[in-house]
């Protein structure tokens, strides 16, 4: 058998293996995306016939200050979510990683939010933060008896806090798994060389966790870009007070399904898709994730 036919066969099997996933991706990923792109150029209220609008929707949406406000809020949610969640998740991961009954108990305890649906979490926090009947009425917590979700200045930060409460456990699990993968020999060698705790963390744990950090960050950034359900519930479906929590996905939903302007909603959807793609490209490129080089070469 000549090498070229073996190569060809390998390529064939590769294509056959990838086919099912590829078909599903095209059917449920690419085709709807193309549909949204077409809709963004159309004038459609979901009821009547589809009209051609050209770039009018794009012009209107991009000229609307509300779109940029929503984009800014989305960027804020993304950046703050990453800044808050990463260190906490890393710290919890470090705590959980060594085996031990006490640690396992806590690990189970704080993974609980992960098991709840976003809607349940939203309704629960809404009730908890109610200024008249919420936790503010408990003894000693009187300082919380204030309009947190109702304040245009604070509402977004409350939302970011609740998002963190929901997702930190997941990222802590990622970090826990990542830390457990680090070979003990590295630490032993470092200890022999006289490295302290701080050095071991900075020179072994963090570099070894590089891909975990990339994965967790990509999930956080792209995830908070499209984050919808919790904010929808917490703001009573309106992105309020005023428009204080109206992030892009919520603006898209309200434009499309309450104002029935499918064209404008599709423009926002396209902006979201493109931003998401660019973000994940940047995170993977910057981190060298795409090169798939090993962190444990020579071990």
């Amino acid at each position, binding site marked *: 058998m000549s090498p070229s036919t073996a190569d060809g066969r390998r390529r064939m099997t590769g294509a056959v293996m990838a086919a099912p996933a590829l078909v599903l991706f095209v059917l449920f990923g690419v085709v709807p995306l193309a549909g949204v792109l077409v809709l963004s150029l159309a004038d459609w*209220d*979901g*009821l*009547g016939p589809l009209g051609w609008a050209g770039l009018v929707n794009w012009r209107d949406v991009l000229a609307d200050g509300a779109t940029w406000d929503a984009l800014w809020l989305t960027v804020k949610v993304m950046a703050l979510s990453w800044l808050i969640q990463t260190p906490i998740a890393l710290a919890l991961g470090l705590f959980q990683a060594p085996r031990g009954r006490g640690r396992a108990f806590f690990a189970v305890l704080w993974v609980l939010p992960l098991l709840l649906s976003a809607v349940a979490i939203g*309704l629960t926090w*809404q*009730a908890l*933060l*109610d*200024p*008249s*009947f919420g936790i503010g009425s408990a003894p000693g917590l009187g300082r919380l008896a*204030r*309009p*947190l*979700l*109702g*304040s*245009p200045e604070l509402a977004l930060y409350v939302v970011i806090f609740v998002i963190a409460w929901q997702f930190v456990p997941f990222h802590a699990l990622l970090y826990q798994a990542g830390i457990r993968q680090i070979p003990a020999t590295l630490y032993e060698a470092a200890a022999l060389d006289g490295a302290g705790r701080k050095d071991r963390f900075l020179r072994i744990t963090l570099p070894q966790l590089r891909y975990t950090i990339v994965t967790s960050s990509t999930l956080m950034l792209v995830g908070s870009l499209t984050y919808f359900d919790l904010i929808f519930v917490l*703001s*009573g479906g*309106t992105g*309020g*007070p*005023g*428009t204080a929590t109206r992030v892009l996905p919520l603006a898209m939903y*309200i*434009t499309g*399904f*309450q*104002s*029935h*302007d499918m064209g404008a909603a599709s423009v926002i959807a396209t902006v979201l898709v493109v931003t998401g793609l660019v973000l994940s490209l940047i995170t993977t490129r910057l981190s060298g994730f795409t090169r798939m080089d090993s962190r444990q070469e020579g071990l």
Partner: protein
Amino acid sequence: MWALSDQTILKDSVEAYNKDHPDKKITLQLFANDDYKQKLRVAFGAGQAPDIFFNWGGGALNDYVKAGKVAEITSADVDHGRFTPSVLKTATFDGKVYGVPCNGLAPVVLYYNKKVLGQAGLQPPKTWDDLLAAVKTLKAEGVTPLSLAANSKWPTLMYTEYLLDRIGGAQVFARIAAGDASGWNDPAVTKATKALQDLVDAGAFGDSASSMNYDQGASTALVYTGKAAMTLMGTWEYANFVKAAPDFVSGGDLGYTVFPTIPGGVGDPGAIVGNPSNFLSVNAAAGDKAVAMTYLKEYVLNAAQVDAYLKAGSVPPVNGLEAELAALTTADRPWLEFVYGLVKKAPTFQLSWDQDLPSEQADPLLTNIDKSFLKQITPEEFGQNMSKAA
């Protein structure tokens, strides 16, 4: 037929129809409130819509009418004269009727806690000045004067609706609803928005209004727990009080009255706002229109159904119910007579603006109402923003 899942009386009447017409049955599908409107829209867009559909009348129904999706209901199909005229108007476009009222009247009224007002030595406010004075007294007593779920936005809108009606009369909004966006810049709109901001400045809504979501029930609870004195809400709130605090209602502590009059206002003090009723409309492409019309004519709000609604604590928009109401033996009788009398005397019954306007204006309206409540925009800016959104 499609309807909301809380419409149990409607369901009974479909079952009664099916029993009488075993050969031409109506299939009823019930949906939760939240996504019903979207589902209906998608179904009509895809040509899979039901023959009869439950709706709110107003601008949303008019969207479907303008798209040619709804069949006219002539007086030969259903006797229009049976229904309260101000209610039927909500489903009438260009002089043609496109929906039949199918459940209880839901005007917005002012509820109050008699004990709280009594302790402060107050009477229920009859005029705007009464209300402002009551706000001051109640605040000094440490009670929130008006409980408001401003987080949901639409409860705040109720104030603006009443204020504009009282200050400028029903024709100001009628002009806007007819498509004249410059009506938003009418001085009466600015005055009404300003009056609401005055109420906010006076501390009428306490600190927690903007955090309260209506569905959480806190705005209702504040009133029956005595932490707030009054609340402005639709008639469904009565049922909420009965359900959450039966002793509060049966003990006679719940009071209700009309929205106060405003000195110098040109509106009729008897005019009301709210949700006149829900409607049943017929799909223009219905397979068997005769079946739909028979159901609407003979089963919707017939004697048995009217009776069922009265027993359940709501009054349907049917003329000449005085005798039935007087014969009622339930504890709700005074309440039902109050609501029925209110609607009968009302020269106009303005549908909630967010339902009356074309649906693409509902969100800008609610957002700008909220921003003006939060004092992020001035009364003038409210008018400007709205005329731009239209």
